[in-house]
């Protein structure tokens, strides 16, 4: 396995993209997109995180098993979040404190 050296130019480009992402996040937070504010915020954060993982952390050039580790960790996190939230979302009315009305009132 010969090591892949990422050029410093790539790093700079990624850095600039991350900055743009940060700016966009802040800007979007001050707009009213209703329930989509959180979606946008997390979406951008995820893109930023992906860039860091792929380039700064060289995941793009790493062996398959490293990529597998990354996928697994995210997948397990998703299991935890999804199944727990599924319980909260489908509770009988009394427990649907999570109901969208809470959010929509503020929107």
């Amino acid at each position, binding site marked *: 396995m010969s090591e892949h050296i990422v050029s410093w130019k790539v790093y700079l480009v990624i850095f600039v993209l991350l900055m743009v992402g940060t700016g966009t996040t802040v800007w979007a937070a001050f707009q009213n997109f209703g329930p989509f504010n959180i979606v946008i915020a997390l979406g951008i954060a995820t893109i930023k995180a992906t860039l860091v993982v792929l380039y700064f952390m060289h995941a793009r050039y790493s062996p398959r*098993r490293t990529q597998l580790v990354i996928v*697994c*960790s995210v997948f*397990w996190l998703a*299991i*935890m979040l999804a*199944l*727990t939230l*599924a*319980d*909260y*979302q*489908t*509770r*009988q009315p009394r*427990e649907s404190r999570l109901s969208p009305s809470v959010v929509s009132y503020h929107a």
Partner: protein
Amino acid sequence: MPDTHYLNATYGYGIRTWLLTTDHKRIALLYLCSVTVFFFIGGVLATMIRIHLLTPGGALVTPETYNKLFTMHGVAMIFFFLIPSIPAVLGNFLIPLMIGAKDLAFPKINLLSWYIYIIGGCFVLYSFGTGGLDTGWTFYTPLSSVYSNSAVTPAVVGIFINGFSSILTGLNFIVTIHTMRAPGMTWFRLPLFAWAHYATSLVMILGTPVIAITLLLAGLERMFHLGFFNPALGGDPILFQHLFWFYSHPAVYIMVLPAMGVVSEIIPTFARKPIFGYSFIAGSSIAIAVIGFLVWAHHMFVTGESTYAALTFSFLSYLVAIPSAVKVFNWTATLYKGSISWDPPMVYALGFIGLFVIGGLTGLFLACLGLDIHIHDTYFVVAHFHYIMVGGAVMGYVGGLHFWWPKITGRLYPDSLSRFAAVILFVGFNLTFFPQFILGYLGMPRRYHTYPPEFQVLNVLSTAGASILALGYLLPMVYLAWSMRYGKVAGPNPWPATGLEWKTDSPPPTENFHVTPEVTWEPYDYNSRPDLGLAAGKPLAPAHGDD
């Protein structure tokens, strides 16, 4: 015995050479001593529980003390005995040997994880000593975070710390199995013990962090009066249960998978034939580890979780039973047309199968939604998990100790005495815990220091069984200790078995192998191993015969 081996080479026996060692084999022995201490503590507490329950009113202690007894029993047994037992003792000792490596990938981290375990253990013992712990091993909030007056904080800190020991062990195993295999040791030549530990490690690294953070939050809640899980301050106690079981259900597979690995080694060795369905057993370990993460809320069927969630989790709980079934059937099939002996490890392994099957099958009762409503939090549950954990996992651990004892110490233990101990264990165990299934169905709730008189007969039976069981544990402790000095010298491969670990001296040298081994044979393949000195099996039947 070889002149130099890991026990006496280099540094000799001095205490500092033990406390600073990075040799996985010595670290395994450090773990062996420490988990035994916790087993002993847990066992004494269990004995007190059983004596107390002899009479309906409670024969021994006050209610507070009784509650502390079972809590400390559960905490000591689960977090400080059973979870580290097989992985940290046998896994640590054997994985590098089995894959032909000189050590684990990160020897220093291995030692570190033992120290972490000890520090965590000290915190927990401190909590036991200063006020005890009366929350149940499940630490449900708000009882643990607000209402309990016992020493919850140090216990939680101790378990939090101990979690990292488990994480680091799992990490070490996975990396080692990935990168340190000897030439020729392909994935499908790995011993099933290694597969089981790979699966176990997956659970350790992906589950343990969640219990760590959960207990951290609960501890902070208790220390600083925060409200994460306290409804009085807006928190949600059910969320705690979700987080707790996200780890603690998969954790039951940390306990049983390694034991299954042990059995998968013992059975082919004493049946002297390749294990039936190697790839299915290997794959089922991984399947158990993965599906095991999807079933946690089956502990919460009556908390008021949503009906849909309950249905989902019940369904998935049944799925996770299938890979376990696969293992049991394959072990049984391995005996077919074998050349079976009943050396002590084999007796333990067969005992494991019997008790694990009962324990596992009673899991099916609990996973059944309509039935769990009635038996949840009764002695039925207590019986279920003791069957799997004590009858299954501990039996596997003791069996594994017997199997590899000659490798670890270079000596053999008395043959018939150890077989006798296995039988005592089996009988005592059933007498202790079978009555509890009936008790549970009759409606005796668990964690009760006093109970209605109609339950007394079964409780007395159970206590009687426990005293036989205690004897069953005492015996091996005595004769194994005895054998270290007076046992017969074992030689490198006393059984004989096919694994790589048996190709080196007993006890092995510090560097494990004098020359890096190369693997050219399939696992458990007696027929291509003239070096074992056995009559090469005459092919009486076609290799894939289904006659």
